[in-house]
C-alpha cells in the first residue's frame, strides 16, 4: 500500500481531496454542520500531508519532470493520463494544499449556509488545481483547467455578494474566450505532431509566424488568468463578490495557474515567439505594475484595493518571465509563492473585519487598532509584507526580479521599482485609515479581537511569510535546476533550419 502511494504521489495529491469533497457532499447532514466541518478539516489535512512527500522526496539536482506516472486514457486520440512535476510545479502544489487547509479552517463559523457544499467545493477545487499543476498531457491539463472553474463559479455564485451574478458572468466570459483559443492551439499542435504530450510539443519546430499565433492563443488564456493588463478587470469584481475563502483561493492559487502555464506551455512551446514578443509582454507587465498601483491608490473598497495590488504584484511575475534570466525567472516563481501567502493573509484580514462589521469600505472603519490590537499587529505585518519589506517573503521575489530586470534594461528596473513607493502608499494609506486614528464609530467600539481560530491561521501565515523572507533558499533550491533547464530550452531556437539553395 505504502509502495503504491509513493509511486502515485501526484494522483493521490489530486484525487484525495476530490474524493474527500465528494464524500463530504454525500455524508453531510445539514443538522450537524460541525461534523461536516471536522470531516472537511480532516480531509484537507490529509490531503496536505499527502503532498509533503513531493518536497521530501524531490530530487533537487533534476531539472526535468519527476514523480511521473500515467496510463493511456483515450488511445484513439493518443490522449494520456500523464502526470509529472518539476521545481516549478511542486512549490505551487504545496501552496495549493496548504491554502485549502487554511480556507477550510477560516470558514469554520463564517459559513453557516450549505456548509457541506462550501467545503466540498474547496476540496474538489484543490484537487483540480493540483491537476493543472501536474498534468503533462494537453487534454488532461485542459480538462483540469476548465473543471476547476466550476467550483469557483459556484463559490462566487452561491456564497457571493449582491452583485455576484455580474461578477460570475464576467469571470466566465473572460476565461472562456481565452480558453477556447488555447484549445485551438492544442488541436493544431496535435494535428501537427499526433500527440498531446507536452514534451513532444517542446521538441516540435515551427516557423516564427506559427509560433507567434500559438503563443498568442496561449497568451489569451493565461493573460486573463494572471491577470495581465488590460484583461484584468474581472478580478476586482470577482474578489469583491466572492466570499473570503473564494478570494483567498482566487488570489493565492488561481492567478498562479496563469503564471505557471506561461512557463509550462506558451514559452517553451513557442520560444522564438516568446523572445519576439517579449517587448510587448514586458510593456504589459510594467503597465500592470505602475498603472494598477495608481488605480489601487484610490480604491475605497478594501477587497478591490487588495485585488488591484494583486494585479500589480503579478506584473512582477510576468516581468520576471520575459527578461529571460535566472534572477527574473526564479524571482517570478518566488513571487508567485510569496503572493500566495500574503494575498491570502490580506484577504483573510478583510474577512475578519467583514465578518464583524459587514462592510468592506475603508470609510466604515478607523482606529481598529484600539479595539483589536492583536489583529492590528497582524494586519500591519502583512501590509508591510505586501509593500515588499525585507525579511518578509514579499521582498524576495520583487528584489530578484528588479535585479534581473536591470540586467536587461535599466528602465525596466526603474519602472518596476516604483512599486517600492506606490506599493507602500496604497497599502499603508489603507492601514492608516482602517487601523490607526481614534475609534471612528460605534461599530468599531464593539469590535472583538481575534478569536483563537483566526489567530491561528494568521499566525501560521505570518510564520510562512517570515520564514520565506528570512531563508528563501530552500525554495530556490527547488527551482534552480528547473530554471536552468527552462532557460536553456528558451535559448534554443525552434525555427526550422533553412536548407538554403
Amino acid at each position, binding site marked *: 500500500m505504502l509502495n503504491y502511494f509513493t509511486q502515485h504521489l501526484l494522483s493521490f495529491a489530486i484525487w484525495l481531496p476530490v474524493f474527500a469533497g465528494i464524500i463530504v457532499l454525500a455524508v453531510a447532514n445539514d443538522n450537524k454542520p460541525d461534523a461536516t466541518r471536522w470531516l472537511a478539516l480532516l480531509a484537507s489535512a490529509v490531503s496536505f500531508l499527502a503532498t509533503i512527500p513531493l518536497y521530501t522526496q524531490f530530487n533537487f539536482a533534476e531539472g526535468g519532470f519527476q514523480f511521473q506516472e500515467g496510463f493511456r486514457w483515450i488511445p484513439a486520440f493518443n490522449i494520456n493520463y500523464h502526470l509529472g512535476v518539476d521545481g516549478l510545479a511542486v512549490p505551487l502544489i504545496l501552496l495549493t494544499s496548504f491554502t485549502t487547509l487554511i480556507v477550510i479552517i477560516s470558514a469554520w463559523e463564517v459559513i453557516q449556509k450549505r456548509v457541506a457544499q462550501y467545503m466540498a467545493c474547496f476540496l474538489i477545487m484543490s484537487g483540480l488545481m493540483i491537476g493543472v499543476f501536474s498534468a503533462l498531457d494537453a487534454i488532461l491539463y485542459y480538462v483540469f483547467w476548465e473543471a476547476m472553474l466550476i467550483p469557483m463559479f459556484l463559490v462566487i455564485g452561491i456564497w457571493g455578494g449582491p452583485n455576484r451574478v455580474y461578477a460570475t458572468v464576467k469571470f466566465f466570459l473572460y476565461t472562456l474566450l481565452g480558453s477556447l483559443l488555447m484549445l485551438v492551439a492544442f488541436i493544431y499542435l496535435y494535428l501537427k505532431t499526433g500527440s498531446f504530450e507536452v514534451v513532444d510539443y517542446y521538441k516540435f519546430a515551427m516557423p516564427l509566424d506559427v509560433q507567434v499565433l500559438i503563443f498568442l492563443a496561449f497568451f489569451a488564456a493565461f493573460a486573463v488568468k494572471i491577470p495581465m493588463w488590460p484583461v484584468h478587470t474581472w478580478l476586482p469584481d470577482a474578489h469583491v463578490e466572492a466570499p473570503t475563502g473564494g478570494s483567498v483561493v482566487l488570489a493565492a492559487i488561481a492567478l498562479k495557474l496563469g503564471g505557471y502555464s506561461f512557463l509550462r506551455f506558451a514559452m517553451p512551446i513557442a520560444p522564438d515567439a516568446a523572445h519576439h514578443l517579449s517587448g510587448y509582454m514586458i510593456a504589459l507587465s510594467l503597465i500592470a505594475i505602475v498603472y494598477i498601483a495608481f488605480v489601487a491608490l484610490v480604491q475605497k473598497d478594501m477587497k478591490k484595493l487588495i485585488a488591484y495590488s494583486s494585479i500589480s504584484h503579478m506584473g512582477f511575475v510576468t516581468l520576471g518571465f520575459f527578461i529571460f534570466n535566472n534572477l527574473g525567472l526564479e524571482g517570478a516563481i518566488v513571487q508567485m509563492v510569496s503572493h500566495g501567502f500574503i494575498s491570502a493573509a490580506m484577504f483573510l484580514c478583510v474577512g475578519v473585519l467583514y465578518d464583524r462589521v459587514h462592510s468592506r469600505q475603508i470609510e466604515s472603519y478607523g482606529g481598529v487598532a484600539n479595539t483589536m490590537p492583536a489583529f492590528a499587529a497582524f494586519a500591519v505585518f502583512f501590509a508591510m509584507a505586501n509593500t515588499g519589506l525585507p525579511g518578509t517573503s514579499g521582498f524576495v521575489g520583487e528584489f530578484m526580479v528588479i535585479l534581473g530586470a536591470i540586467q536587461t534594461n*535599466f528602465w525596466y528596473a526603474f519602472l518596476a521599482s516604483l512599486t517600492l513607493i506606490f506599493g507602500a502608499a496604497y497599502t499603508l494609506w489603507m492601514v492608516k485609515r482602517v487601523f490607526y486614528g481614534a475609534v471612528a464609530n460605534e461599530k468599531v467600539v464593539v469590535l472583538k479581537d481575534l478569536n483563537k481560530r483566526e489567530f491561528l491561521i494568521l499566525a501560521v501565515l505570518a510564520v510562512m511569510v517570515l520564514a520565506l523572507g528570512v531563508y528563501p533558499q530552500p525554495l530556490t533550491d527547488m527551482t534552480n535546476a528547473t530554471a536552468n533547464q527552462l532557460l536553456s530550452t528558451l535559448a534554443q531556437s525552434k525555427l526550422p533550419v533553412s536548407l538554403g539553395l
Partner: protein
Amino acid sequence: MQQIYLAIPLLPLLAAIVVGLFGKQLPRASAHVLTVLAVGVSFALSLYVLNEAMIAVPYNETIYSWLKSGNFSFEIGFLIDRLSAMMMVVVTFVSLMVHIYTIGYMKEDAGYARFFSYISLFTFAMLMLVMSNNFMQLFFGWEAVGLVSYLLIGFWYTRPTAIYANLKAFLVNRVGDFGFLLGIGLVLFHFGSLDYASVFLVAPQMADVQITLIGNTPWSLMTVTCILLFIGAMGKSAQVPLHVWLPDSMEGPTPISALIHAATMVTAGIFMVARMSPLFELSSTALSFVMIIGSITALFMGFLGVIQNDIKRVVAYSTLSQLGYMTVALGASAYSVAIFHLMTHAFFKALLFLGAGSVIMGMHHDQDIRNMGNLKKYMPVTWITSLIGSLALIGTPFLSGFYSKDSIIEAAQASTITGSSFAYFAVLVGVFVTAFYSFRMYFLVFHGAEKWRAVKHDDHDHYHGLAPTDDPHEPNWVIKLPLVLLAIPSVLIGYIAIEPMLYGDFFKGVIAVDSAAHPAMHELTHHWHTVFHSALGMALHSLMTLPFVLAASGVTLAWFFYMKRPDIPAKMQTKFSVINQILENKYGFDNFNERVFAAGSRFIGHKLWQIGDVTIIDGGMVNGTANLISKLSSVVRKLQTGLIYHYAFAMIIGVFFMLSFYTLKL
C-alpha cells in the same frame, strides 16, 4: 568570535520578540528588565569587539546562504572592522541609555511593553545594518530600521498628526530606497556580486566603464551607481529634498527621537557612504553631488531652526543641519571626519533630545519654548547637561562637537571639487546659525522669566501644560542617569578620539581616499602635523579663527535678542514677514509634495481607474462584447451604429479567426 558577533544583534531581537509577544502576560517590569539586559550585554560585547578590532584583522564571514540563483548568491554575513565595531558601540550605548531613560519617560504609558519591544527591535535592525558585509543585508537593515521608525513615529496611533507623520516618513524613505535599490541592482549587474569585499576589489577597474541610459549618451557607471546609492542616503539621512519627514517624525515619543531620529538611524546614510568610499572615490561628479546636497541641507535647514517654537523641532532642525555637515564631509572625501562627527553628534544630540524630553516631562508635556523659562532653578541636572549638549553642538573648543565640526569646516575649505566653495560658505554660516538657534532655545528654556505662570489656560482644548502655580520638577534617576552618562562623552570623546580616528590609522584599510584627486584629507593631516600637533593645540589655535568668532557671536546675539531685548525679534518678525512666511512654510516643500505628488498621484489613479478601467476596458471591451453579441444576434444593421471596439477585443477575435483558419487549412 562568531558566537559573540551573532549574540550582539540577536539578544535585542530575542528580547524584542519575547516582550512584544508576551508583554501583556508578563509583569510590567519584565519589559524593561529583559530589554535593558539584552542591550546592556550587547553593549558590553560591542566594547569587547571594538577592543579586539583594534588589534585583530577584520572579520568577514558568511553566516548563512540566503538565496542562490544562477551565478548569483546572496548571503547573510558580518564584516567586523573598526568602522562597524565603532558603530556597534555607539548604537548599543545610545540604545542602552535610551532604554534606561524610557523606564521613566514612558512609565505611565499603556504601550509600555510595546515600546520596549520596538526599540529593542530597532537596535537589532541597526546592528544588522552596520555589521553587514554585503549590500543585500545592508538593505535589509536599512528598511527594517525604517519599519521600526514607522511604528515608533506612529506609536501614539490615535493622534492624527502622528499617523500622518509616520506614513509620510515611510513613503519619503521609500523614495530614497527606490534609488538605493537601483544602485544595488547596478552593482550586482556590473560587479557580479553584492559582497562588499568582492565589489571593492573590482571597483578600480570599473572607474572608466560607461553605460548608456538615455539614447546613446554615455554615462560613467560609477557616477550613476554612486548617485543612486546616495539617493538612498538622502532618504534615510534626511537630505534636501527628502528631508521633509524628519521634522514631522517628532510626533513620536522623545526617547526615539533621540535614538532613531538623531543618534543612529538617520546617520545610516552617512555610514553607508563612508562604507562605500572605494566606490565614491571613483566619481568626483558623485562627490560633488553629495557635497552640494549636504551644504544645502546644512545651511537651509539651520535657518528653519531659528523660528521653531516646539522644543523638539528646534533640535530636529539642528539634526538636519548637522547631517548636512556630515554629508559635506563625505563630499570632501573626508569620510573619517564624517564618521567622527557622526559619533560625537550621536552623543550630544541624544543628550539634547533626552534633555528636551526631561524638560517636556517637567513642563507636563507642554513643548512650546515660549511657555518655559528659568528651568535652571528647578531642573539643575537637566540644565547643566543640556548646556553641555548645546555647547558641544555649537562647537565650543575642547568639547566633542568642536573637534568634529571644525574638521568638517577645514575639509570643506581644503576640498577642490565642484561645489566646495559653496560648501565652505554654507558650513561657516551654519556655525553662526547653529549657535544662534541653540542658545535661543537654551535661554528661553532655562533662563529668563517663568513664562508658564502667565499662560492662559483654555478649558476647551486639552491643555497638558503646567498650571501657573505649579513648579516643574526634575524627573527621577532613570532620566538623570542617561543624561549624565551621555554628557561625559559629549565633553570628552572629541579630545580623545580625534588624533587616532582622523590622523592615526584607525580607519586604515577601511576607508579609501584617492588623495591625488581629492586632497582634502591629505591637507588636514598635513595641517595637523605642522600646525596643531595635538588636540590641545587645535583647540587653542581655534580661538583666533573665524568659526569660533561666528559661534561666539551667534550665542551673543541670541542672548541679546532673547534675554535683553525680546522686542527686537518680535519686531523683525513683522518687518520681514515675507522671509518669516517662507521659513514658516519650510520653503514650501510640504505644500509642494502634498499638492503635486500626493494629490497628483490620487488624481492620476482616479483617472486611470475611471477612464482606463471603468470606461474603456469594462465599458468598451467587456460590456461592449456583451452588447455586441446581443446586438449581433438581433439586428444586423445595428452594426453600423458605431460600437466601440477595443483593440484587445479585436485582437482576441482576430486571432481566433486566424487560428481557426490555420487549423482548417492545414
